[in-house]
């Protein structure tokens, strides 16, 4: 029997759907059990529960494969075939080696000969490690310039296109339904029940029993599909066709009055007039877009009081048209039409029958779904939220990975947002909502990010495309500022940029692309690109060429195998950090409270591991940047809260060396002051006992529409005049620089998208590489399960054990009927081959997958990480190419590849 038992409050933030609040039971100093912190149900929108991944933390702590001593590499050669020869060293030696490199770099100049930062850094899993990284970001900040180009677990493989376009259109870094209120959701591959964490799972379960109908549209029957009312097995990469047919039906099969015409006229650009060259017709004096006023029977500025704009029609009007690079056309009595009219015309060809053929789904499906959507939209209904009457539109559309990134994702994101506008269901209760903002701060509350921009729309910080300011060579190796105007130049922009381009351009630079250099020093934290990027064998070769890599190491893995120094940090249950919680955040974190939660050492550190805050402070001191580091912490870098305001001052002295507890005690005091409006300044001890502290926030913060309306700002739908202009300018700049390999991407800058045969892009890529579409007849897909989504827990046996209860892990899912035709039985060893190479695994026969698709759960293929390397799981990443041809205009690709299938051996 244990003599001392404690329950220590903690949080788990292993995935972006966190944080979960939990307690860890500690018996005689040993962590034994994870439990949900049910006391937190009073503030946590998921009942105070924690997800399955949190239960892996005990094994994670006591993993015998952990690195518990600093190590240095003794074999100067790097590569998969090179034993690194790691030998234990003291912390003093390890920190001195790293600090000496930093000092040498600073002496040479923080930028290299190509103008890129000599120091690069990558952290994993969509920045969720920032909840574990302590004050390390303050150390990086103190160094002056760091390149995040090589990916931080997000970027091209995440909801990439949605991030940009979502923020452009409704400050939606990601998009979700207003689940507690909605009654009908169309989900195009959004795997919410696997990747949405506790809160999304909780909210959707509550909604389902109250009558929510969700239709899951995806090539295989995912976990979320299993929890949905209907599954529509759509052909991969044809989601845009479905959505275009769906919009066609809304526009043509139902009376206009069934749509929210008032919303379209007052809160979108639908009535804006489009001139002959495709840009808005503008008032010559004010430059404002014109609308047709039915009262005056004349074109007037869109914001003229007392007008009645017309939704659709063709008119004759005069004015100014402004195109790319300030090209101007003065029009006298020319034929113009409303943006909405353009929409109707553009979508006329995309009939539901056309869409059903493209998508390979049952005839009648698209019209039925459109009718159901409209019926559930309850156009005209209202709801009172905190005393304010708002529209109620309980219908939403969500997009999942490979739908909202890669080719076709622009079309899907646009169509989804357009559909919401047609019924007045964007950013209103029950409708389609954004979760948080990243590129257009401030993040919280989201409505604070609303800033008036041109033409009645929200401002958006596009990277410049004009001749004077556009630069081919930007400050980051992934070229986001040159190629992707939507990526902005905000603090998070580089981490979201097209990471695969940085990796590709290190070795294979297309004509006239800037030379990309290897960074002198690369910090790696909780990320494993040698597994998680595409074309992993090539990635591994490039990682091996990085001259000096410092990895914060938990266990040996495929990336730190190529490192020069391993720094073993205290992990989740051993170290200290305070984070912000609450407000609204992805994936469905919609709280009625906000505040802070603490992670604390529940047990003593294993071996000779150290808290990363102490490591960071020591590195800062030894690198000669201690005062800059302390200053960064004072400003809230890494902690998210300034240590001094008008009401409190807990600042660090610039030249003093602080211990982890002292630093976080000050952060806790500042947090207490913020949450209590200065009435309390409780420090670390208070949070250690209570775990979290919150205050209520208005439910109205969930919805953007009320503030947009108050500010007279419209949703930039349907017509993408700005994108059209930017695309033309970008094309000119690139061509002026001799770059033609981005031309296909330039086609994506359309005012209203024109459907393209997206699956054919992959077929053409196969042919370009010497194959045929018939040879690679299958679509290889990947999917998530809650046990592994974002968790970086492939080396945790408990996760593997329970994941095996869910079909699909450790093998390749094949349609049962198709497998029989090919003589493949359940458990047979099969090979899946792309034009690059093959991966192999056991066949898992399932009915819930299209016959032309194959599926791998998760992304594994480890060869170093203890336990994970013995899973013998196949990996899509091994066989998926990095390719400009497979990259869309936002710089994203998708986890999908054409593949052949062959039986190797019977079970």
């Amino acid at each position, binding site marked *: 029997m*244990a003599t001392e038992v404690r329950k220590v409050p903690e949080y788990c933030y292993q995935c972006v759907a966190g944080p979960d609040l939990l307690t860890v039971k500690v018996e005689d100093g040993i962590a034994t059990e994870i439990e949900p912190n049910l006391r937190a149900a009073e503030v946590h929108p998921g009942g105070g*529960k924690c997800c399955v991944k949190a239960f892996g933390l005990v094994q994670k702590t006591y993993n015998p494969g952990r690195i518990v001593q600093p190590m240095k590499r003794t074999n100067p050669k790097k590569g998969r075939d090179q034993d690194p020869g790691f030998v234990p060293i003291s912390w003093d030696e390890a920190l001195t080696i790293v600090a000496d490199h930093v000092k040498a770099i600073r002496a040479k100049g923080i930028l290299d000969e190509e103008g890129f930062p000599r120091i690069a850094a990558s952290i994993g899993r969509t920045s969720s490690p920032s909840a574990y990284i302590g004050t390390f970001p303050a150390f990086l900040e103190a160094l002056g310039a760091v390149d995040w180009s090589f990916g931080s677990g997000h970027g091209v493989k995440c909801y990439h296109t949605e991030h940009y376009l979502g923020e452009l259109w409704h400050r939606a870094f990601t998009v979700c339904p207003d689940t507690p209120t909605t009654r009908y959701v169309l989900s195009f591959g959004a795997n919410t029940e696997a990747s949405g964490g506790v809160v999304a799972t909780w909210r959707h379960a509550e909604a389902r*029993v109250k009558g929510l109908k969700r239709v899951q549209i995806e090539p295989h029957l995912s*976990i979320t599909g299993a929890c949905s009312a209907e599954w529509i*097995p759509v052909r991969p990469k044809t989601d845009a066709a479905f959505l275009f047919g769906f919009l066609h039906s809304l526009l043509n099969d139902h009376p206009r009055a069934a749509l929210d015409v008032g919303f379209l006229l007052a809160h979108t650009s639908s009535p804006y007039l489009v001139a002959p060259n495709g840009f808005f017709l503008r008032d010559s004096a004010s430059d404002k877009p014109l609308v047709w006023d039915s009262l005056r029977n004349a074109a007037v500025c869109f914001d003229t009081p007392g007008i009645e704009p017309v939704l659709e029609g063709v008119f004759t009007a005069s004015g100014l048209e402004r195109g790319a690079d300030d090209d101007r056309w003065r029009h006298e009595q020319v034929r113009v039409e409303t943006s909405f009219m353009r929409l109707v015309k553009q979508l006329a060809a995309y009939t539901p029958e056309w869409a059903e053929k493209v998508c390979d789904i049952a005839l009648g499906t698209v019209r039925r779904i459109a009718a159901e959507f409209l019926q559930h939209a309850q156009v005209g209904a209202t709801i009172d939220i905190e005393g304010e009457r708002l529209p109620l539109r309980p219908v939403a559309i969500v997009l999942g990975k490979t739908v909202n990134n890669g080719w076709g994702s622009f079309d899907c994101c646009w169509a989804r947002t357009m559909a919401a506008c047609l019924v007045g269901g964007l950013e209103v209760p029950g409708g389609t909502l954004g979760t948080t903002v990243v590129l257009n701060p401030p993040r919280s509350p989201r409505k604070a990010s609303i800033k008036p921009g041109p033409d009645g729309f929200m401002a958006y910080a596009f990277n410049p495309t004009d001749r004077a300011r556009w630069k081919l060579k930007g400050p980051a190796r992934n070229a986001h500022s040159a190629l992707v105007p939507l990526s902005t130049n905000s603090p998070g922009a580089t981490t979201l940029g097209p990471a695969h381009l940085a990796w590709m351009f290190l070795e294979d630079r297309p004509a006239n692309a800037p030379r990309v250099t290897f960074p002198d020093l690369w910090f790696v934290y909780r990320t494993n690109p040698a597994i998680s990027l595409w074309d992993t064998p090539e990635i591994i070769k490039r990682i091996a060429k990085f001259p000096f890599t410092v990895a914060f190491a938990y266990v040996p893995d495929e990336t730190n195998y190529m490192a020069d120094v391993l720094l073993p940090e205290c992990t989740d249950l051993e170290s200290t950090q305070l984070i912000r919680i609450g407000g609204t955040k992805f994936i469905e974190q919609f709280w009625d409270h906000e505040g802070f939660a603490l992670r604390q050492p529940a047990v003593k550190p294993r071996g000779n591991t150290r808290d990363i805050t102490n490591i960071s402070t020591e590195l800062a001191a030894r690198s000669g940047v201690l005062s800059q580091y302390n200053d960064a912490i004072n400003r809230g870098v890494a902690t998210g809260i300034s240590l001094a305001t008008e009401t409190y001052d807990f600042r660090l002295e610039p030249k003093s060396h602080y211990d982890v507890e002292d630093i976080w005690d000050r952060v806790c005091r500042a947090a207490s002051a913020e949450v209590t409006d200065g009435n309390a300044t409780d420090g670390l001890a208070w949070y250690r006992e209570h775990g979290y502290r919150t205050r209520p926030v208005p439910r109205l913060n969930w919805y953007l529409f009320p503030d947009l309306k108050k500010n007279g700002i419209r949703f930039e739908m349907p017509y993408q005049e700005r994108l059209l202009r930017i695309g033309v300018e970008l094309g000119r700049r690139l061509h002026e620089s001799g770059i033609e390999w981005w031309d296909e991407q330039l086609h994506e800058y359309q005012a209203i998208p024109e459907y393209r045969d997206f699956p054919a892009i992959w077929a053409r890529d196969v042919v370009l590489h010497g194959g045929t579409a018939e040879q690679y007849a299958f679509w290889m897909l990947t999917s998530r399960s*809650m046990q592994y989504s974002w968790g970086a827990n492939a080396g945790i046996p408990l996760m593997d054990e329970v994941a095996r*209860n869910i079909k699909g892990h450790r093998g390749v899912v094949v349609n049962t009927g198709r497998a029989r035709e090919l003589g493949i039985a359940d458990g047979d060893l099969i090979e899946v081959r792309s034009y690059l190479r093959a991966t192999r695994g056991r066949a898992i026969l399932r009915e819930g997958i299209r016959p032309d698709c194959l599926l791998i759960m998760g992304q594994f293929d480890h060869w170093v990480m203890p336990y994970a390397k013995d899973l013998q799981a196949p990996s899509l990443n091994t066989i998926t190419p990095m390719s400009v041809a497979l990259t869309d205009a936002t710089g994203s690709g998708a986890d999908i590849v054409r593949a052949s299938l062959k039986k190797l051996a019977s079970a």
Partner: protein
Amino acid sequence: MTRYAMTADLRRCVGCQTCTTACRHANATPAEVQWRQVLDFEQGTYPQVRRVFVPVGCQHCADPPCEHVCPTTATKKRSDGIVSIDYDLCIGCGYCAVACPYQARHITHKSQSAFGGKRTESEEKRFDESRMSVATKCTFCADRIDAGKARGLTPGVDSDATPACVNSCIAGALAFGDLEDARSPVSELLARTEYFRMHEELGTEPGFYYIVDDK
């Protein structure tokens, strides 16, 4: 009288296995021994397919076949409906494991670390020699219920008197309580929903109800 029972709302369950891991933690079961687990079923053929997640484990039958075949009276049904195993009496013969129509019983002869090899510190702390070579299964967290009741708590309502799987469920799919108490969570749920019990035709009268819809 008391009859403890559990409900699983199949409309809510997402197959996340949080209950499985919570049970593994709470009851310190050895690696690969899952007293609670969630199965992943398909029904139909492509493209008319349904996929459903079904939590399973000991059904705490009113007429448990395992009790009938137990040669040592180690398996007993308590007065509150919980089917229990006295590890001191159990000889690990496995008759019960064969007799159980729900495949809910486990016998472990050798415990090793989940990582393979020597047990970790945490595993060593939780290791219980009395669980080796005897039948084990879901107890509805009887220790927790008994301790909670002793403190005046209500099983199924107060978390300290409620099975760990129920406490942990992130979809609110699992509920627990006394069927004989009309105000218990399970009684209230069953009063307003359509449900079934697994292999009801066998006459075991399971204490585990699967909710499929509202009435």
